[in-house]
């Protein structure tokens, strides 16, 4: 990649938009997933009786099971949300930046 092309891409307003949007989005989702996971771990560490409450009087399953399964399913869903947006909005932006600088190649 030559210097001129790199400069033109960096000065493109769409490129700045792409970088800031993608960074914010990735950070938001990342913090959300990590916060969810560490809340779960901290509850286990400091207040495990809370997760040890049984779902029903007769059964043996505790609340820990649906909560853990829920965390796994929510992380699938956040992956889906990210992939949707990356394949749609972000790839469209990338392609339009490429079209803008094509003549410099």
């Amino acid at each position: 990649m030559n210097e001129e092309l790199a400069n033109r891409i960096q000065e493109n307003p769409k490129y700045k938009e792409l970088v800031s949007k993608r960074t914010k989005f990735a950070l938001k989702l990342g913090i959300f997933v990590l916060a969810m996971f560490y809340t779960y771990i901290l509850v286990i560490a400091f207040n495990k009786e809370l997760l040890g409450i049984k779902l029903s009087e007769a059964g043996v399953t505790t609340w820990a099971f649906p909560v853990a399964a829920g965390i796994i399913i929510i992380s699938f869903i956040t992956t889906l949300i990210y992939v949707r947006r990356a394949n749609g909005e972000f790839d469209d932006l990338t392609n339009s930046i490429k079209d803008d600088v094509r003549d410099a190649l």
Partner: protein
Amino acid sequence: MRLISILGLIAVVAFAGGDATFEAVQRDLNIPAIIMFFIFVGATLGITYWAAKKTKSASDFYTAGGGISGFQNGMAIAGDYMSAASFLGLSGLVYLQGYDGLVYAVGFLVGWPVILFLMAEKLRNLGKFTFADIAAYRLGQKEIRTLAALVHSLLLYYILLHKWLVLGN
């Protein structure tokens, strides 16, 4: 490879030393099991050798020359995950400790979306396949490769730890 075997040795020594109440049970030599083990290891090495002869470039090696669809790749990653870690390690932990064992399953799944958010697009946009490739592309080749190999061996040790724990019990 040598580093991994050294780490493995350290782990074995640590387990043997740490568990004072462990009673060694003398078992009979299980010849069929040993033969099966060597057949499987031999077959795996054979397939690897055969496949390695066919790959010429990094793209061939990591993504089969780009000839794999997203769905097929997803199946391959799922296959990786439904391996010894899930089938032996985690089911063993759940068997031994009930729902408590599930905590491990959550831990090693939740890391993946975070890697996806922070790394995946950067890797793809640079046309590189591993994080070490990116770091080596921007920084010194030799130092980064050495560091990556060390960190990787260390992480492998922790990945293997829960398998050893369960299988050893």
